[in-house]
């Protein structure tokens, strides 16, 4: 961190050098994602919460489309008074973002009038609108699931003639590909439709609590609001149910540490009625609960449980052992509800006046109204819809492979979505002409080079922020979702300034103190490396890492606020967690002994 006069600054965007060996990274991303000279004057932070890895070219769609949608909703649909949308830039494969504020008082006032009418309508009709939302989003899921990828056979089906449809298969290559992108875009519009209003309600309550109780831990505010019957817990609950079913059916012997899911399923098929009973229960759970992502839906390699059964089976093995030992696996929802209510009642009682209690009731009530959406939308959007979306794109990749363009289906994700469009056009033409797609020769070297560059970029440690530190950070979403406040920036700058090499500072997201061996995971695909009793250190813990939480002793992340899923799940499991450290994955090494202090938000390096 530099001191320039009185203005404190992180490195400027223009000062970020290309990673040696990956100087060609710009070729992967469109021109509108590049830092411009004037961007040096603004404050950017690395969105490692959503984008903890360098971006494959196709996966930039998970930045482009969400920011298209969130900005549309805040700036244009609801006219949030003080903020427009979020801009993003990519450098060395990493996504940096900044929000565009509205600062002119007259302009804020003009927008406020529009905002109040529109936001008021949503708040007043929240439950009814949210019901409609669930119908619409499930409609979109149905649509994406129904999309087919044309086979491009030698001859068209006879029906094309008999029904005189007049349109050949190759047309539907593009139409259906575009349909995938269009549905993905719509999903994100719906995703962000309620999001900022939901966070707004939370921020207001959060700030009230902090004013009334200056020392209240963030997690206490979260606990007063958090739901208990949250859909995101459901996949994990299903695994527990299946574990018990395995014991009840007497097939639990098949679930041993390190077992291969395919072999287990095969063996169950040969276990007669008991095996069939378990398999029936399994099939029932898979739709929709195994459409949960092993990541958080921002990368194509975040497969669903259905696609990669090793993740749910790892947890299943553990749960089976517990069920066999007679341990109850049922989440004590009643106790959790009671705890939540008693915490809220205690704080309420401690308020100074009846007026404050009335305001508290209103704000908490509003939070609880909006929270089912805030907590549950992820399952529908990032998990169910998005894993389906990537499956379809992979199927287009498979088409390109069959047509000889790609070596493997997953190579499609090395192309930007506009480049996929071009590759499909090439295939459509070749099928029509009877010629050969030219993409094979053109694209293969490009793809090979991009894969190599991503490997190089992976080892780069991006600065947590770029540009001059702003005087005030007021954006409610930034504050809540990313946990970035003036204090966070302080923490980050300390990390780069000071040399207390033995401590990593963040936020205590879940209380308790434990010591253990660190396991640093930079990528969700490494999830299988986690060993029982280790301390997970990761850029950001994704919602569906649930199964892993049963194995680990504590969680540490680079980024995350108190409402990040890591925080919620850690509290649920009663294990210490420190989030928002900025640098844990850089400073801690796998195998190192560390002490995680979830009370103070400090990780101490013991070796």
């Amino acid at each position, binding site marked *: 961190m530099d001191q320039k006069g009185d203005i404190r600054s992180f490195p400027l965007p223009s000062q970020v050098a290309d990673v040696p060996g990956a100087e060609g990274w710009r070729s992967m991303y469109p021109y509108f994602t590049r830092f411009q000279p004037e961007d040096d004057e603004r404050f950017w932070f690395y969105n490692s919460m959503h984008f903890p890895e360098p971006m494959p070219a196709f996966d930039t769609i998970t930045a482009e489309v969400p920011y298209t949608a969130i900005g549309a909703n805040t700036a244009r649909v609801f006219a949030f008074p003080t903020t427009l949308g979020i801009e993003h830039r990519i450098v060395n494969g990493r996504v940096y973002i900044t929000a565009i504020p509205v600062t002119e008082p007259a302009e*804020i006032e003009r927008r406020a009038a529009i905002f109040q009418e529109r936001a*008021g309508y949503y708040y007043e009709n929240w439950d009814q609108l949210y019901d409609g939302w669930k119908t619409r989003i499930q409609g979109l899921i149905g649509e994406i699931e129904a999309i087919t990828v044309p086979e491009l056979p030698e001859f068209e089906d006879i029906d094309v003639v008999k029904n005189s449809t007049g349109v050949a298969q190759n047309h539907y290559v593009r139409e259906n590909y575009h349909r995938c992108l269009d549905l993905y875009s719509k999903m994100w519009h719906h995703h962000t439709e309620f999001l900022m*209003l939901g966070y707004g309600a939370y921020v207001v309550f959060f700030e009230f609590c902090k004013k009334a109780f200056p020392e*209240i*831990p963030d997690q206490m505010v979260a606990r007063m609001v958090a739901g208990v019957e949250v859909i995101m817990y459901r996949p994990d609950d299903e695994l527990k149910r299946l574990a018990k079913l395995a014991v009840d059916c007497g097939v639990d012997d098949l679930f041993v540490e390190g077992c291969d899911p395919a072999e287990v399923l095969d063996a169950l098929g040969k276990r007669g009625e008991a095996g069939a009973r378990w398999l029936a229960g399994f099939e029932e759970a898979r739709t929709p609960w195994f459409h949960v992502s092993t990541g958080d839906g921002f990368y194509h390699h975040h497969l669903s449980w259905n696609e990669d059964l090793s993740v749910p089976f790892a947890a299943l093995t553990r749960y089976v052992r517990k069920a066999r030992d007679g341990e109850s696996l049922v989440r004590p929802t009643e106790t959790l509800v009671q705890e939540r209510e008693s915490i809220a009642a205690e704080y309420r009682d*401690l308020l100074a006046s009846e007026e*404050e209690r009335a305001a508290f009731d209103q*704000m908490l009530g509003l939070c609880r109204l909006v929270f089912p959406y805030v907590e549950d939308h992820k399952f529908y959007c990032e998990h169910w819809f998005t894993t389906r979306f990537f499956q379809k794109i992979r199927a287009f990749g498979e088409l390109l492979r069959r047509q000889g363009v790609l070596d493997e289906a997953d190579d499609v994700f090395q192309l930007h979505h506009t480049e996929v469009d071009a590759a499909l056009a090439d295939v459509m033409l070749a099928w029509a002409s009877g010629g050969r797609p030219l993409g094979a020769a053109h694209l293969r070297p490009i793809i090979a080079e991009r894969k190599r560059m991503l490997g190089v970029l992976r080892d780069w440690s991006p600065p947590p922020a770029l540009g001059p530190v702003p005087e005030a950070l007021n954006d409610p979403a930034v504050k809540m979702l990313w946990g970035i406040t003036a204090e966070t920036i302080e923490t980050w700058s300390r990390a780069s300034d000071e040399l207390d090499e033995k401590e990593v500072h963040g936020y205590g997201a879940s209380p308790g103190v434990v010591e253990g061996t660190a396991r640093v995971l930079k990528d969700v695909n490494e999830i299988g490396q986690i060993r029982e009793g280790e301390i997970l250190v990761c850029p950001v813990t994704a919602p569906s890492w649930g199964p892993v939480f049963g194995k680990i002793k504590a969680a540490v992340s680079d980024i995350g606020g108190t409402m990040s899923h890591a925080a919620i799940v850690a509290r649920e499991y009663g294990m210490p967690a420190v989030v928002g450290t900025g640098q844990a994955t850089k400073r801690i090494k796998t195998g190192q002994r560390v002490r995680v202090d979830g009370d103070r938000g400090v990780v101490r390096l013991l070796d």
Partner: protein
Amino acid sequence: MTNPYLVRSLADIGIDDRPTAGGKGASLGELTRAGLRVPPGCLVTTSAFERAVQALDPAGAIRREIESLAADAADDADDYAAVARVTADIRRRIEMAALPEDLCAAIAEGYRALHREPDDADAGAPVAVRSSATGEDSGDASFAGLQDTYLWVRGADAVVDHVRRCWASLYSVESVSYRLRRNLPERGLAMAVVIQRMVDPRCSGVMFTRSPSTGDRSVIAIEASWGLGSAIVSGDVTPDTYVVSKVTGEIVKRSVSSKLRQHRMNPGGAGAVDEAVPADLQDRPCLSDDEIRLLADLGRRVENHYGAPQDIEWAISGAATNTGENVFVLQSRPETVWAGREKGPVAMPKGKAFQHVFDRLGGAAR
């Protein structure tokens, strides 16, 4: 107790008894009556004081002597020599004069009743004899430190002597000067005396039922050091500090300091001695987690009883415990620093709940 108007058990006294029990006595009585663990005690009421003064000085000469000083207060209030001359004489007379027989008997019996085994009293079980002036700790005029407290007093005769000394301390140079400077009237001036079983604290300290640094009402802050709490108050030691959440009971912060000095009872005589803390205790926390929780629980009960945040003095005697039978409240006062800073509600209810969001996102209220 033979004459409830002269000597009363602390358990029979409440906060409304200030006029006859004095500030300290009324507060200790209130806490005792509320079922909080206060060292068992009795109170020699202001009626006893008045009766003694009446016997000693039926014509009211003492008051007139002081009032004659008061008449010259404008010129002469700071003239210590004059005040000292008058007060020394009055003090000597109060301390020397024999008490009426029934008053002596009532005090002696109050003292004996504090001890379960009557034999103890004959053997001279130790008590603290503490002044409790009317008007003390009342918020507007603090008499803090102006009246005497005697520790480790043994035997009925010595207790009677020290009660008289407490009375006499009402006429110390400092007390009289204080009243003169503030123009406080002599008429109606009286003093009660608390006689309490001695607690010899292993550790003691203070406790605020809101954060002293932020005013947060959801936490309890405890400061603790070895021996008597006077070491903390005088600044002779940096105490251990603990913060406990009222909501979850969790100990959210703890800092154990190097406690180099301690004040301990001087068993040979009155008062306390300032001494070095044994090396092996200096860096040890003086409270166990159980004790921290017991204290926090005690703090909440006192606060709930009074309905406002409190500033509490406490002591723990004897060995570590998890039942609280040796955790005592020595004093409780309303917290005043943050109470004075409160600026109205953090937020007011609105017509519709979501209007709170409008205020925040509208760029208006911060």
